[in-house]
């Protein structure tokens, strides 16, 4: 179960990076999704970051990674002392994460539309190796406009890549978004889909753990509309 004291620490950890005491929705759109995944879903810990059979979490939407770093720090993947250097020349924590610099970070991201195709390959590789590990990738709703994602969604659906899970953090920042468009896009390619309140931890947990034995799974997590 979620430890509320741990979750309550995250805002303070983010403050080490941003200097702000409190954070608005734009800075934290991914926070609850990340927390539920790392707290209750992903089978990975600071001791298993090199285990070939760990679950993989790929942050594709690399922009605004403060929530990600805060969760990694709270769960012990990175030292808290790193947070205050965020974005500086000597810090391993950049405005976009680099997997070669940060323990527990599975991909370097920043350019949109790379995480989901990489996740397809990772899930295929784990399957080929006979591993039961799951692959998760977090994308933004606007990010899904990148065509590379469409290649990945269509292929993964066609081959029934059940080890693959996508969570779309939907803050309605896509230029030409329409209600229901994201879920319909995945469902149309044969995916299992769910849409939930991206702030509701129990609803997120239920959506993340819904069985999808023969197909990939997409969870659309709605959060407050991006205003900046």
């Amino acid at each position, binding site marked *: 179960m979620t430890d509320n004291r741990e979750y309550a620490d995250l805002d303070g950890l983010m403050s080490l990076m941003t200097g702000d005491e409190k954070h608005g929705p734009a800075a934290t759109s991914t926070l609850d999704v990340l927390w539920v995944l790392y707290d209750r879903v992903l089978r990975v810990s600071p001791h298993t970051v090199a285990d*070939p059979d760990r679950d*993989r979490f790929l942050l594709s939407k690399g922009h605004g990674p403060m929530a990600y770093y805060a969760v990694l720090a709270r769960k012990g993947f990175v030292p808290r002392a790193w947070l205050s250097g965020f974005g500086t020349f000597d810090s391993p924590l950049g405005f976009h994460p680099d997997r070669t610099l940060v323990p527990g970070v599975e991909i370097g991201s920043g350019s949109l539309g790379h995480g*989901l195709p*990489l996740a397809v390959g990772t899930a295929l590789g784990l399957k080929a190796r006979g591993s039961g590990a799951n692959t998760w990738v977090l994308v933004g709703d606007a990010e899904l406009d990148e065509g590379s994602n469409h290649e990945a969604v269509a292929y993964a659906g066609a081959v029934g890549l059940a080890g693959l899970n996508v969570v779309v953090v939907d803050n309605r920042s896509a230029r030409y978004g329409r209600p229901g468009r994201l879920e319909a896009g995945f469902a149309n390619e044969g995916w299992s889909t769910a849409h939930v309140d991206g702030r509701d931890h129990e609803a997120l947990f239920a959506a993340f753990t819904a069985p999808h034995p023969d197909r990939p799974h997409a969870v659309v997590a709605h959060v407050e509309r991006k205003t900046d």
Partner: protein
Amino acid sequence: MESMRERFTATASQLLDEDPRVAVVLAVISSDRFTEAKKAHPDRVIDVGIREQLLIGVSGGLALAGLRPIAHTFASFLVERPFEQVKLDLDHQGVGAVLVSAGGSYDMASGGRTHQAPGDIALLDTLDGWTVHVPGHPDEAEALLRHAVADGDSRVYIRLSEQANRAALPVRPEGFQRLRSGAGGVVVAVGPLLDATLEAVEGLDVTVLYASTVRPFDAPTLRAEVRNAARSDVVLVEPYLAGTSVPYVAEALCDVPHRVLGVGTGREELRRYGTWQEHVAAHGLDAAGLRKRLAGFLR
């Protein structure tokens, strides 16, 4: 003669049998040649359809999961179209893959510009850490593929072509090999242009080096041969964009006064169809064309 591409698909199929880390990633092209391998290794022969960004993204993901991917399609769709995926999904992730292209600069001459990729190696030269093999014969293609797959988690590009030399040479991934010595300059012949180069320099007093591996560029051998020659004149004969390796010659000879000529395919679009043999001649890369360029430059 068996083509390099035919040898590649046969060898890659054997590698799938031999090494459980090997995966072959395709985007329809050559997929029919892996039908048997796909039956034997359904999880490690992956055809993503006509999706070349995914071709490279999946290769990067497979490498992240501990496999050794071999990705293959035509050069224009393997390097040029998904170039950001090559840069980010392989290089930036710090993972390796073996990219094997077919088609090269003009193999599908009748297909026109869309199927020609003379700039593939120049593009890869903007990235760090790529090994580039340009085999001149199917036997060399097989040896270099086997070497590449076994070469740790390195990033390797293998450029196959329809054009080939009459006989294979032993491959030396670590550097160039000297085929003849002379005092009037050093000619570096790359891959399938060796036969035409040797014919072109007949009677000229020059050293000829053969390169089936162009990256890393064998600067020590070039320096040594230039020092042995009476003239510090260097000619590169490359079956892709003219001058692609000239910066590497300049770096190798940065403290040696020298002249360098980069011969290869022209930058200008020919807008001609026909055969690859006609394109070789049109770019001046047949023996007669090379003879003219070399004799004029070497004096």
